[in-house]
Structures are given as structure tokens and as C-alpha cells.
């Protein structure tokens, strides 16, 4: 894929379809409720630079409500062109999404990672489909790179990653079970995690090929293996390194680093995709 194509934001319609295929966030309560057990400064605000909390078993506790760091709009204009500012559906503002939500490969030098012939065919197919989702899930990792927050709930043996977007819940087993050998393909895949000192390493396989990795339409195949390394730097910051290994679609694996910011005293909201949808009629025009 050439840099000029990448920067020209040719996927206008595709992105518009993706952004508008979501329903509304219906409900909220307990926002700004001071959560017990969180270190605070003298003025009552959460001390985001305090040491990361730990669970009873001594591991870092990743639990919390998180939202991906969103680069300034100017940076997105530089990467994708001034047209990117036009995409601001209420609740899905481009200002509040990660640059990687638009294009996961944006930081890579041109030509370093390219689509295979099968990958090129897949991305063309995806773009021609246009309004692809129809309330089907955005998948991984896109569900954590958009406007909506996600919530991690960590227990002994199982970690939940709950995406506000599409109301998706990923289960990451940390009870020692191995990954399935021949999994039945799924939207969120099958995940197991283990601790490498203070870093949670999550391996996921068993994806279906129905979802996309980003709004650009980068495809994934059933063969994709996804590795995440979660490191809670302090109370307020969660660094996640994501490595995508999909030889069917890409010429070599690639890695993307994102930081999620704690949304202290906040919560995920109930999300019903099919409710109050108003966009599709306009998209048809």
C-alpha cells in the first residue's frame, strides 16, 4: 500500500459507514462516583501517578475503566488529510479515537509490512461491502481504540475485558489452560494470559475473518495470532503492546503500542446497537 493512498483517506464512505452503524449509548449513572480504594490527592482527585495497585496474589491489578490515548486532531490531519476532521458523528468524534483506529499501520515505514495478494483481495472486498458492520461487532482491537471506553475486571483465574462498544465481553483465562488447538472461529477469539513479571501477556487465536482491524479496512484471517502485553505503568496509565501475526494477510508480523488512560470514578454505559439507529437512511442517499 502506498503512502499516498494511506494519507489520502480514500476510505471516506467506509469509515462513515463504520462510525454510523453504531446505535446510541443509552444510559448512564454513577458517573463521577468516587470509587473506594483509589489513591487520591488532597483535593480528592485520583492520584494518577501513584503506584499501580496489586491483587491479593501480588500481581498488578489492571482493573479499571480505560480509554485509549487520542492524539490531537492536528496529528490526525497530518496523517490522514484535513478531511478527517469531517468525521464527527455525535458520540463517535474522530478527536476521541486513536490514530490506530483509523490505520493500524500508520507508523510503519512504507513497504515494511504489506498486504499479501490474499490480503489485497480481502481489503478490496471489505471496502466494496461499504456499511459492513450492521450491528456486528467491531472486534479486537478496534473495540478499545474508538470513542468508547472499556473496563477490565480482574479476578483470580479470569480477566474480563468489557467493551462499551457493542457491549462485548472478552474472557481472558489465567488459570493455566492452553489455547485451543483447532478452535471454532469467533469474533473475539479465545484468549489465555500469563504473567511475565509485572506484565500480563495475552495470546489470542481462533478469530473469524469477518471483522476488520481498523477503519481503513485492514483484514484479518482465521490464522491470525494476536499477542498483547499489558503493563500498568501507574494508577493512571496502562501500556499495551499489540502484535499481529497473520501470514495469510500480511508479509510479516507487526507491532503497535498504545496507552490507555484511567477514567477514574467513571463507568462503562449500557450500549444497545440496534436502538434508535438514524443513520442508515441518510447513508443510502
Amino acid at each position, binding site marked *: 500500500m502506498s503512502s499516498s493512498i494511506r494519507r489520502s483517506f480514500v476510505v471516506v464512505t467506509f469509515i462513515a459507514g463504520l462510525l454510523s452503524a453504531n446505535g446510541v449509548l443509552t444510559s448512564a449513572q454513577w458517573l463521577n462516583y468516587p470509587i473506594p*480504594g483509589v489513591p487520591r490527592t488532597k483535593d480528592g482527585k485520583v492520584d494518577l501517578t501513584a503506584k499501580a495497585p496489586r491483587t491479593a496474589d501480588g500481581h498488578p491489578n489492571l482493573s479499571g475503566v480505560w480509554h485509549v490515548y487520542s492524539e490531537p486532531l492536528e496529528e490526525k490531519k497530518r496523517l490522514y488529510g484535513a478531511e478527517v476532521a469531517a468525521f464527527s458523528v455525535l458520540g463517535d468524534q474522530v478527536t476521541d479515537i486513536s490514530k490506530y483506529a483509523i490505520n493500524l499501520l500508520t507508523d510503519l515505514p512504507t513497504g515494511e509490512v504489506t498486504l499479501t495478494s490474499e490480503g489485497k483481495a480481502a481489503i478490496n472486498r471489505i471496502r466494496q461491502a461499504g456499511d459492513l458492520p450492521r450491528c456486528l461487532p467491531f472486534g479486537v482491537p478496534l473495540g478499545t481504540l474508538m470513542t468508547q471506553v472499556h473496563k477490565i*475486571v480482574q479476578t483470580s483465574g479470569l480477566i474480563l475485558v468489557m467493551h462499551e462498544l457493542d457491549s462485548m465481553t472478552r474472557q481472558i483465562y489465567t488459570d493455566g489452560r492452553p489455547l485451543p488447538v483447532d478452535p471454532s472461529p469467533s469474533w473475539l477469539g479465545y484468549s489465555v494470559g500469563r504473567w511475565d513479571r509485572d506484565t500480563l501477556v495475552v495470546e489470542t487465536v481462533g478469530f473469524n475473518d469477518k471483522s476488520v482491524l481498523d477503519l481503513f479496512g485492514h483484514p484479518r484471517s482465521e490464522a491470525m495470532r494476536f499477542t498483547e502485553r499489558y503493563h500498568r505503568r501507574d494508577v493512571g496509565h496502562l501500556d499495551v503492546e499489540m502484535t499481529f501475526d497473520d501470514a495469510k494477510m500480511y508479509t510479516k508480523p507487526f507491532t503497535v503500542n498504545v496507552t490507555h488512560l484511567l477514567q477514574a470514578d467513571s*463507568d462503562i454505559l449500557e450500549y444497545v446497537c440496534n436502538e434508535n439507529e438514524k443513520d442508515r437512511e441518510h447513508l443510502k442517499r
Partner: protein
Amino acid sequence: MKQWASSVLGLLFVSSAVVTHAQWLNYKTPGVPRTADGKSKLDALAPRTLDGHPDLSGVWMHEPTSVEEVRRLLGPERTDEGLKTNAPGMEFGTQHKYAFNILADFKPGDSPLRPESAKRSQELAAALSREAPCSLPDVPIGFPSQGLLSEPIKIVQAPRLTMILYELGGHYRQIYVDGRRLPAEFNLPAYFGYSVGHWESDTFIVETAGFNGKTILDGSLHPESEQMRVTERFHRRDFGHLDLEITFNDQKNYTRPFTIRVPHNLLADEDIFEMFNENEKDCAHIGKAQTK
């Protein structure tokens, strides 16, 4: 009546998409007490969390109501109509009777349903018989039916927060156990409301309010209002059994509170499946059925 039956049952069964994927079924879950032959020992003591409370975590399925009992409750006409569309994974006999009628235990003339609410239910049933269920938006079936149909639930008990994950629709509830109280008013009511829990001895008591009044309590279209408050009492009798008592208090629709009791069995070494709004195949057939 025939149309009403097919509409309501269709709404319950078709508004769910297909359960798509499964893995790790029959995986031997660590920490499960087992008999000599490796089977889970369901009558073992209930496990406890580090803070000493019973651990409700696990995959649970209500005790389904048999086809014979459903026939007795619904009558042969509705049952036979439902049996015609006995969709795989949603066969009759895999649901709980309260999913069909939450007031099933009340004798005729003793129902707490207010007359004006009964009238609204009838109007909704008539509307459904005119309009295919599939033309309605695919929104949550809601509480409590989300956990009383053919799919299990999973409870994940974390410190200060207990989650209930519904396989049906992939929905979830958050139950806060961090000392917060329910707000006096809800500016943004929700399909599943807002829940707080506390322990009374070994019973987990959950109070829920803030429902949006947009869903129904069962397939008989018994309504809920935004005023409804629900109290659930969870008691893990032993390793394999969870007793659940649910009390509904909705003075707008019912003359008095009423309570249902739903025993659940542990599905040891199993898991809930991913379930999204895909591969729906039923609507076309239901539309044909309704025009007959």
C-alpha cells in the same frame, strides 16, 4: 389467539441470534472438587472467596420446565404452535416457566396485574399479531427473561463487583458491592437497571432499580415500568446448586409485590458462548406463519 401465541413466542425466540461458537467445553476447570471418577462433585461445600463470602462464580443454568408442564401452563394450542418452530438450541423444554409467564403460580382471579396494565398487554399482543416480531428492533429481551430462556449465565465475582454475563445476546449486568447506594432518581434508565449488592450471612442480596420500562417481563407480555424495583437473593446451597429468589415491586403495573424462585444448576467445566446479531434465518418463516 393463534396469532397472539406465535407472535409472542416468536418474539422471545427469534429476537435472539444464533449462538455461534464454542471452545473449552469439557475443559477441566481448576479448583473444582471431583469424585474418584473425575466428575465434578456437585454436593461439595460451596467455595468461598478470600474475604470469606460464598463464591457464586460459575456457569449456571436454571432448572428448565418440562414440555408437559409448559403444556399445562400455556395450554395445548400455544404449546403445539411453539413446538412447530422448535428451533435447534431453543427447543421447548429448555426454558423456565417464568419466561413464558412470570405470574404462572397465581390462580385465576388472584393475579396482581392491574386491569389497566392487563389491557396494555393485550394491546401490545394485538400489535404484535399485526406486525412481525422481526420488524421490531433487536434490543435486549431484558430482565429477568434474559436468564430464563435456553441459554446459561455466568457469574464472575470480583472484589467490590459481581458480574452476571448472559450468553443470550452477550449482555451483562454489573452489581456493585463497594458500599454505594442506589440513586434516589435515575436520569438515564437502562434495560438492565442499576444494581448494588450486599451480604446477609451467606446470602447475596441484590437491589436493582432504574429500569427503562421498555421491555417486558415474560412472553406473556407482562409489563415493567421505570418505577420497578427488584430484589434478588442468591444462595449457593452447595457447589453445584444456586438458589435464586426474585421479588418484583412495580406498583404502577401490579397491585402488590410478587416473588419467583428459580433454582440453578452448575454447568461445571463449561462456558458461555459468543453470541452476536448474525445469521438470523427465522424471520422470513415467521412472517409466512403469521399470514396463514
